[in-house]
């Protein structure tokens, strides 16, 4: 039986086609990407995720940037900057920054690790479906790459008034940005849903093939 797919952007009903790794199926009418085959298996995706997790720890353990002006030195960490912002009466904005550059990436890493652990054992439960749903929901709100650009802009503004010293956390954050994107790109959501509980069992077709 061929599976049906309806385009999320124009509702056109189409048959699914088998894809080569790295390939993406596009809607025949509006061109929206429908689904894709991941470039690599869950083992490599897990490796990206764990490497990104190490970078996340480093990005939090070390100062992000230090500033030196006529003998005075001031440095800040990722969370320290957010706490400072809240201390200036900007609690709502601080909460938004916290959610987009700290909480969302952390949830993405934890969710990916959880799903990949399950994927390697090929077993799917309700909890995993909830985690996958959560990953899809927070994806637009995870903004590490925007933050890294923001750091560059801030440094450019400070360069004329002080000596600016990039910290270990800044490099870790840049590495986290790349590795998290790689992990999310390598995670095969389509494949995951097909293995999810409650769907038709693919063995049926295999049995028929044996009988014939």
């Amino acid at each position, binding site marked *: 039986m061929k*599976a*049906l*797919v*309806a*385009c*999320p*952007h*124009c509702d*056109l*009903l189409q048959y699914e086609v088998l894809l080569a790794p790295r390939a993406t199926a596009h809607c025949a*009418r*509006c*061109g*929206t990407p429908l*689904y894709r085959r991941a470039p690599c298996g869950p083992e490599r995706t897990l490796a990206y995720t764990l490497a990104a997790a190490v970078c996340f720890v480093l990005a939090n353990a070390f100062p*992000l*940037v230090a*500033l030196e*002006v*006529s003998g*005075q030195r*001031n440095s*800040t960490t990722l969370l*320290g*900057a*957010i706490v*400072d*912002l809240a201390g200036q009466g*900007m609690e*709502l*904005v*601080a909460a*938004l*920054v916290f959610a987009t*550059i700290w909480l969302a990436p952390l949830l993405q890493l934890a969710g990916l690790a959880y799903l990949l652990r399950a994927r390697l054992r090929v077993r799917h439960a*309700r909890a995993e*479906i909830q985690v*996958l*749903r959560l990953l*899809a929901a927070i994806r*637009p*709100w995870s*903004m590490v790459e*925007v*933050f890294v*650009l*923001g*750091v*560059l*802009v*801030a440094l*450019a*503004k*400070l360069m004329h*008034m002080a000596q600016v010293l990039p910290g270990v956390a800044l490099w870790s954050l840049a590495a986290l940005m790349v590795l998290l994107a790689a992990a999310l790109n390598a995670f095969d959501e*389509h494949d995951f*849903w097909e293995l*999810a509980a*409650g*769907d038709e069992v693919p063995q049926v077709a295999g049995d028929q093939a044996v009988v014939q």
Partner: protein
Amino acid sequence: MSEAPAFVTAARLGLASCPDCALVQRLGADGRGRCPRCHAFVTLRKPNSLPRTWAFLLAATVLYPIANLLPIMRSGNLFNAQDDTILSGIAYLWVSGSWPLALVVFVASVLVPLLKIIALSWLALSVQRHARRHRRQRTHLYRLVELVGRWSMLDIFVVTLLSALVQLNSLAEVSAGPGALAFAGVVVFTMLASHSFDPRLIWDGAGRDD
């Protein structure tokens, strides 16, 4: 049915795809259902898509001029104090020689939110008027809006960092201004607006020649 359509949509056959796992399924008589695979709520189109989109757009439109007029950053030392709006911050970058960054900030903070509001308003209006032309281009525009919206958070992150770093007692101090809150509101509301809009509405009613 008047004529055989060149394209068959899921809705025409009483089917809908699950918003979470994309499984195509038959809906109940009331146009609702529960996905048999992942138990998500499935509806034919996003519920109240247009009213929600308009509500978020209205909120963003009200906040946009406020975000641009109020200072987003306050800096000062012993001798003087200075309020910076988004635009004066860009002007500072430009004058100090970082014009590529000035351009990036201008696009992310000024242009993208404005174009997002205009683009989504146009999309919502065109759906309400049952526009038949440029369906493919409008879908592309929607995808673009979804893609670039998050980059508007750039200035919020810059202010967060500057206000944490520049705390040098009498020499210089920077703190976030009320414009930052309004600007954060613009970013969040435009993201929610684009999330509420259902691009399938663009294609509903498309026939053989559209």
